[in-house]
């Protein structure tokens, strides 16, 4: 009977863990939860079937040993756990098992929903795993048993973990063992995680796009925008979809009362809307401005308001204008495009007066000036600059998207554009003299996508060997806002780190990465007063199969502040 109970309990692990339809943290289901040994997988399925058919019992896979008389785990399993736990104390670290998520040292926000703990065990003998969460305080550990390489703590367990990992990190250890010889632990590894006392206190607005990236109405309709809440165990609600036109970069005013977004309204690629944040946003012509209204020499392609940014107060917008861009679709799935401007200057727009002006200091046509960013007090603009690279175009008078039978690396070698970050005073539109930002310029690398921390102390930017977006080697660096030594951030993952956004309180920063999957995911890192960041947390519930989650922005609004954005039927 004990055996039957055990089998049943294991079966319940199989069905419960992880939650159906939920992507585990740190990787695709196929990658992370593949049963490595098909024979053992078949055996487990067989046993589970027997258990389900003959035992008819239910059970829980985790046990908080702090809680007396807990019914979280059947006694038989608990006994096994106790046996294993006793043994585990004598066990040395075994190689072959790696906890792939959470990252060692990761710091979680206090309000975040539970992650899935994921590991990879290369030992053939491991077919079941014991997970032990230990705390530095006197608090008793939490145990769990899994027959797959992942464990999703339920809400109560996770709250306990978070509550007890604020002052000191909690240690999570995973032991691999063979169920047939349950007294033998064959693999073991540990990580430590902690919970910050700093809340995020903001929502996350982001876009989802199917890969590979394609243009066309059919594909625009598949774009989705979601407003995410990190504390929710549900997928963030979709607030905008089924668009007949393309839309992309978006930003909010500092207080969260205004939203701006690039949207090709009425086929105008330079159109942006700026409107107040409300539950149901219905966009009409009055909400739109167009960068194409900025006077343009005829030879230049239409302006699209490239990397346009609304100012924190919402009074201004700044954007690249007169731009010529190189755009290519590659033969690579994850890095399916190469895009950068080769020419362009900055202009600003007065939201109140609806007037455009060139931004003196960033209006030198010998350079391409792009990717601007506001300081939160609107005193400075930091932007990326490079000498113009119009020789990259075969014919400057016929700019079009190239279809290249080459991967991103080959194209990068062919078009090795590098940008430097410059800072200049905005001076209420009068501009000033741009100065290279030390630590983010003339370093033999391409420096771009600067973002000020809300306290104005830091600038985080993206750095890669070449390019300005979607670069495999892109990493995040932090420098003092006035320039200084650049420090590589700890949050960087192995592949593509970019598009970062500070939480309004400045304690957290989110960013995108393709470290786990070609479908970009959103990560969150804690930043302390000294600008030191932590290994990140992955917001796996923000992802969908076949969709990349990109252009994430923190928004100073609550989770339900926007329910729907749509274009008015009266066009």
């Amino acid at each position, binding site marked *: 009977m004990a055996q039957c109970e055990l089998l049943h309990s294991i079966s319940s692990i199989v069905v419960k863990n992880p939650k159906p339809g939920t992507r585990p943290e740190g990787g695709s289901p196929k990658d992370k939860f593949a049963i490595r040994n098909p024979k053992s997988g078949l055996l487990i399925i067989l046993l589970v079937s027997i258990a389900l058919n003959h035992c008819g019992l239910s059970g829980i896979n985790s046990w908080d040993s702090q809680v007396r008389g807990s019914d979280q785990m059947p006694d038989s399993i608990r006994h096994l756990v106790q046996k294993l736990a006793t043994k585990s104390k004598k066990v040395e670290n075994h190689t072959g098992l790696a906890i792939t998520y959470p990252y060692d040292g990761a710091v979680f926000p206090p309000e975040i929903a539970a992650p899935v703990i994921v590991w990879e065990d290369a030992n053939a003998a491991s077919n079941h795993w014991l997970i032990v969460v230990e705390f530095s305080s006197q608090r008793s550990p939490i145990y769990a048993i899994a027959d797959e390489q992942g464990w999703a703590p339920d809400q109560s367990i996770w709250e306990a973990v978070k509550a007890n990992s604020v002052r000191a990190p909690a240690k999570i250890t995973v032991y691999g063992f063979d169920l047939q010889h349950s007294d033998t632990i064959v693999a073991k590894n540990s990580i430590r995680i902690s919970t910050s006392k700093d809340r995020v206190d903001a929502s996350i607005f982001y876009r989802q796009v199917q890969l590979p990236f394609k243009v066309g109405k059919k594909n625009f309709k598949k774009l989705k925008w979601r407003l995410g809440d990190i504390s929710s165990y549900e997928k963030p609600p979709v607030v905008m979809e089924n668009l007949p036109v393309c839309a992309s970069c978006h930003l909010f005013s500092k207080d969260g009362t205004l939203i701006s977004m690039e949207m090709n309204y009425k086929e105008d690629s330079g159109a942006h809307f700026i409107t107040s944040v409300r539950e149901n946003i219905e966009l009409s012509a009055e909400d739109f401005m167009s960068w194409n209204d900025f006077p343009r020499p005829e030879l230049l392609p239409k302006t*699209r308001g490239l990397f346009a940014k609304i100012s924190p107060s919402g009074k201004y917008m700044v954007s690249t204008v007169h731009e010529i861009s190189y755009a290519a679709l590659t033969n690579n799935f994850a890095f399916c495009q190469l895009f950068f401007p080769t020419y362009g200057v900055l202009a600003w727009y007065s939201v109140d007066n609806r007037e455009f002006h060139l931004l003196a200091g960033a209006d030198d046509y*010998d350079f391409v000036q792009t990717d601007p960013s506001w300081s939160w007090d609107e005193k400075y603009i930091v932007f990326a600059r490079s000498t113009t690279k*119009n020789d990259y175009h075969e014919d*400057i008078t*016929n700019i*079009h*998207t190239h279809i290249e039978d080459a991967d991103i690396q080959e194209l990068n070698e062919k078009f090795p554009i590098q940008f430097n970050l410059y800072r200049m005073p905005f001076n209420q539109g009068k501009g000033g003299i741009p100065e290279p930002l030390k630590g983010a310029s003339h370093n033999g690398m391409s420096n771009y996508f600067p973002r000020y921390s809300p306290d104005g102390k830091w600038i985080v930017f993206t750095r890669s060997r070449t390019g300005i977006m979607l670069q495999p080697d892109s990493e995040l660096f932090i420098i003092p806002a006035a320039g200084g030594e650049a420090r590589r951030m700890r949050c960087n993952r192995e592949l593509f780190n970019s598009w970062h956004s500070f939480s309004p309180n400045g304690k957290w920063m989110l960013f995108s990465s393709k470290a786990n999957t070609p479908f970009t995911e959103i990560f969150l890192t804690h930043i302390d007063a000294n600008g030191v960041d932590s290994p990140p947390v992955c917001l796996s519930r923000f992802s969908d199969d076949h969709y990349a989650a990109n252009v994430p922005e923190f928004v100073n609004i609550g989770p339900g502040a926007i329910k729907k954005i749509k274009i008015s039927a009266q066009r």
Partner: protein
Amino acid sequence: MKRASVYFILTLIIVAGCSAYRTAQFKRRYGPVRTVDRTVSSHKSGEISFYDEVQPILERRCDVCHGCYDAPCQLKLTCYEGLERGGTTKLVYDSARLRPDKPTRLFVDANSVEEWRQMGFHPVLNERDQTPPANLENSVVNLMLQLKKENPLPETELLPASFDISLDKKQNCTTAEDFSEYKKKYPLWGMPYALPGLTDKEHKTIVEWLRQGGLITPRPPMSANAKKIINQWEEFFNGTSLKQQLVSRYIYEHLFIAHIHFDDLPDREFYRLVRSKTPPGEPVVEINTARPYDDPGVEKFYYRFRPIETTIVAKNHTVYRMNRQKMELYRELFLQDDYEVNKLPSYDLKTASNPFKAFADLPAISRYKFLLDDAQFFVMGFIKGPVCRGQIALNVINDHFFVAFFDPEKDIISNDTAFLASVSDYLDLPTSGENKLNITILWTDYQDKQKKYLAAKGEYLAKLDPAKTGNDITHIWNGDGHNRNALLTIFRHFDSASVVKGFVGDTPKTGWVIDYPLFERIHYLLVAGFNVFGNVGHQLETRLYMDFLRMEGENNFLSFLPKDKRVEERADWYKGARAEHKIHLEDPLRGLQWDTGIVYTTNDPKKEFFEQIIEHAGPAAGPKDYLNRCPEKNCVDKNTGPLEQRADLALQKVTGKRGPEIQVVQDVAFIHVVTGNKDNDLAYTVIRNKALSNNSFMFGEERRRIVEDDTLTIVKGYVGNYPNSFVRVNLDEIEEFVESFLKIRDQLSYYNVARKYAIRRTSPNFWEEADWHYQKYLKDEPVEAGLFDMYRFNRIAEKSDAEFTW
């Protein structure tokens, strides 16, 4: 029959049917086509005068394209007769023509409108009932002007891409009957094409003249002074002695394309020397042979002067001055008693096409001196004559090179009449073979002859100078101390070329030294012997043979350089394995054992040689080229005023720009420097010289480009007849302009400068600026100036109609 063929034939039938239907409608409405005599003895009150009112408008607004051989549809608007002749779909310049065409030279190849109609020309003036409505509805000129009025040039910065302004633009030579189709298809293509339209006043003047029936009065008769001068010259040319006849024939064959100006007549009066069936005193009846050495076909003919009645366009305006000194020179050179002519040469092609046979009796030195005295004119004939149109015709020469000549007194080859007569068989020119297509055989034949000539020349020189001391600087003609024809510079502007006096510009890649046989052969190949109506074989042979002649001139130049530098220098001129092989096969460097009498002191003998030539020529070399060869910085011509000095100082910096960055700069740009005082405004020309690895091949020029070696030359005044661009800059902004010009490195930076300083095809002041340049040219060179051609005026940029999308 295949289905496609059936459709094609059906389409043809439908199109022809539509056209016939429209013609029938016109006939019903306006009566049948018939000969119209528009001549009136004088104008009544209210009638528009062609000569006083219409022609000046045509000249400034229409002749800038509708002149010369490449006038669209051969519609020459440079004179009334051209208007009356009308247009045709036949091309003069047709590189694919298998059979020679019948020439269609205005005033020469037909004498009446009926004859032109028989030759396929359609009217552009009304030839139906002469009523005011019919006069307008049946006039292509009116319809084209009206179309422009209805659909003016778009007021955009860039000329829309739908306007084809390429040299080889497809012709659309519509008739009045078919104009509705044209209008439907090309609503923006009224005239002037791709340029701003006429002013209301200009438009009304022409339309009213057309409405009145396009009446014309007789031309004013020749002035008494002109008659007197012409009588003297005709008397000279029609002397009856054999010697005189031979001399006249020789001179005629060299001046037949000249715009002859008599110094004692008004600046803008020009004449052509023609062969006429009628003697002096009677109206000229021009003998219309294709070439000047063709059999005149009559027992007796006369050399006559015929006034040039057309607008003078710069592209074919080759001025030859006649005056008392010239007459004396002719007598001194040709009519002394030091030789005899006992028999006149025949006009059979074999003899007539070879000047060394036909004119063997004339002293070679005299012939050579005749050429040298107006060397620029004769070289201009090579490049302004009909041969010189299009890229392939011109890529036989480099974009910029200097030309000097052997001294006629010192050069043995140039003044040895007997030797030249003895090798005259080898000096046959391919133009003697009439329009054949077996180019390969002809090519081998002429290559062989050329080699034999060079071998014979080498042997002859070796006999005369066994020590092989070679040439020294005195072998270069110094212009007799005063003649500025001694040194010339040739510029090629992709599909046109120019020649100026003096060495202008920085040290070029190559140079030529020309002797008499070379000079004469180039003239007979490219001018006298070239038939613009000839077939493709004729055109190719001419181009191919010119390769030999260029190399001969270059090798002459090399013979002045140190022996051990010649191979190296030539290798630099003919880079690329194929070119090296070809040049070795066709023309291996000869005379390497010959020394040079010039002492060189630097490692750049080419530059040193040019400098020595300039020094040797003395006053004949002309003023120092401050703009392009200013070894010390900021040097200016102190003889000029402060405004000019400022402009010179600023603009000379332009020449510092070279290589890939000037690829976007136009080949020929005219700069108008506005000084604030209209009379003091200045004109400059910036020329782009494009380097080639070699000139050995007709095709694939782009592959042979060495853009790193491209240079710019700036010249005061005008060089080039086909401006590609106008720049207008205030003197106060000249430094700023130069600074921005120096920043040009690609199409976009060029565009940014051009949109600020250049006059565009769509600029409202386009015509004003074009007029200014023409007037300035006339002011600077009252005789040599001509109307510039705008057919090759380029856009500042051309934008694709496609929009960038993502």
